[in-house]
């Protein structure tokens, strides 16, 4: 099958002064798959996610989504095409209620900021959809809480709920389990397993257990370069990966 890749990263380069953070990175994400991006600390995973989401501009290379070039689209236009992301460091609206957070995401795709007259509070549909998104991540009971009063694990769930509420077809997850306890991690894995097949995911994660349970394919990033892409079993037995990545971890 010659399916158009959901996401195609092609020869991406990003330099910060003398440091080449992304060095000719190249990989595809197939429609519907969960693609994990792993690599030792400082390999440039987050830098790569920033470029795919549009927060950083690559110095060279090409990005395409569903076959269309998105290299030069600003972040908000990519979101409209169905590309959403969650942040490694929780980035939510701390001063607003949990429900209002998600309502903002729903509002974004149902007309955005256009509207100077009708109070949003009266738009029952926006809040109904927001509640659905919260229900999905298991935060429905906390809808009316102030976001800054949520626990870390709950904030991580909200982080994912915000991305989900924009109704993405491709979800970039930057360490969704960061800082979570084992129970919370397990709940997050369950949540992501539930989304599998419905949403294509590019997952950056350090928790190898989660990666091997979730991923259909894995790409390994070392010093900004993709050194291998393959099925979890192939990656596990790849000699270069073991040396560059798992070996690094062992000595660290």
């Amino acid at each position, binding site marked *: 099958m010659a399916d158009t890749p959901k996401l195609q990263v092609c020869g991406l380069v990003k330099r910060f002064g003398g440091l080449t953070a992304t060095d000719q990175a190249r990989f595809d994400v197939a429609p519907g798959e969960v693609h994990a991006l792993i690599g030792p600390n400082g390999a440039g995973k987050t830098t790569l996610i920033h470029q795919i989401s549009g927060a950083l501009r690559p110095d060279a290379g090409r990005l395409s989504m569903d076959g269309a070039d998105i290299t030069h689209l600003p972040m908000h236009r990519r979101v409209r095409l169905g590309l959403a992301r969650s942040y490694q460091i929780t980035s939510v609206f701390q001063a607003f209620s949990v429900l209002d957070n998600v309502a903002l995401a729903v509002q974004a795709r149902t007309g955005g*900021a256009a509207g100077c007259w009708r109070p*949003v509070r009266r738009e029952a549909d926006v809040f109904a959809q927001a509640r659905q998104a919260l229900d999905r991540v298991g935060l429905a009971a906390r809808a009316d809480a102030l976001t800054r009063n949520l626990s870390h694990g709950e904030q991580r769930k909200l982080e994912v709920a915000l991305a989900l509420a924009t109704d993405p077809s491709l979800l970039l997850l930057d360490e969704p389990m960061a800082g979570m306890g084992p129970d919370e991690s397990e709940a997050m894995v369950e949540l992501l397993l539930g989304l599998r097949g419905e949403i294509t995911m590019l997952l950056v994660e350090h928790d190898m257990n989660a990666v091997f349970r979730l991923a259909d394919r894995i790409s390994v990033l070392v010093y900004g370069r993709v050194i291998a892409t393959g099925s979890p079993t192939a990656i596990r037995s790849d000699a270069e990966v073991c040396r560059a990545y798992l070996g690094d971890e062992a000595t660290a």
Partner: protein
Amino acid sequence: MAPLDQTLPRPTGALLLAAAVAFPLAAGWLGQDFYVGLAARIMIFALAASSLNLVMGFGGMVCFGHAAFLGIGAYTVAILMDAGLDAAWIAWPAATAAAALAAWLIGMVSLRTRGVYFIMITLAFAQMLYYVFVSLSAYGGDDGMPLAARSALPFGLDASSDVTFYYVVLAILAAAMWLMQRLVNARFGRALQAVRENETRMEALGYPVFRIKLAAFVVAGAAAGLAGALVANQTGMVSPGLMYWTQSGSLMIMVILGGVGYLYGGVVGAVLLLVLEEYLSGLTLYWQLPLGVLLLAAVLYARNGALSLTARWRHG
């Protein structure tokens, strides 16, 4: 922190409006007509401060050059009158449009910066405009220029009567505050407040953040321009001092005193500052000293302004 949805309860609004409508009658009955002029001046600055509150309080853009738009509005009225155009229905919208255009140009450049840099660049633009008008000798330069009369109002209203002018200003302020209340609770206002909280996340949710900020900046500039047109009419003259940084500063002080991000923060702040100024300057020549002390007390003990005190009181 101010709540996301803000409305003035209808009875409160009606009561305030009734009091404002009755004020000139009471002042006239007590023979204190002077206060009608002062009240009109307070309402004009309430409009200007509220427009600053929209960018500063709701949009999180600390603009230190807001007086530029006030000045542009005032000069538009004066220059048009100098050219023989004294109809309010042309001059006032023209002042609003001129300030909106200036806000669009200044916003296009300054909104690319953030934080301290935004403060400095808006200040720089306002100071530049100040010096432009200082050197415009055709329009009075440093000394400014007097207006031959107040703008000619439609429907046979006579603006030279302080009471009529008071009611015109009241109508404009009431309409502006009503529009602002609609705006901040609507989609645009919510998005604007969310941009204040977390710009990056708003972009990641798919909002055109720059355009939202620019739109708010232009709306605020336009409202300040209208306030400027009213200032020119009220004082009967315009001068570059209207754009000077101290004027921008006093608008900021009004917003901070009243409550940054509170819908009526600008109104409350303008009332507080101008009434205090009036009262203290009657007591002593050095009225700025006690005013400074009061300001210190306000930022120390009511950090989010007077309206945050009422909110605290309500929630215990």
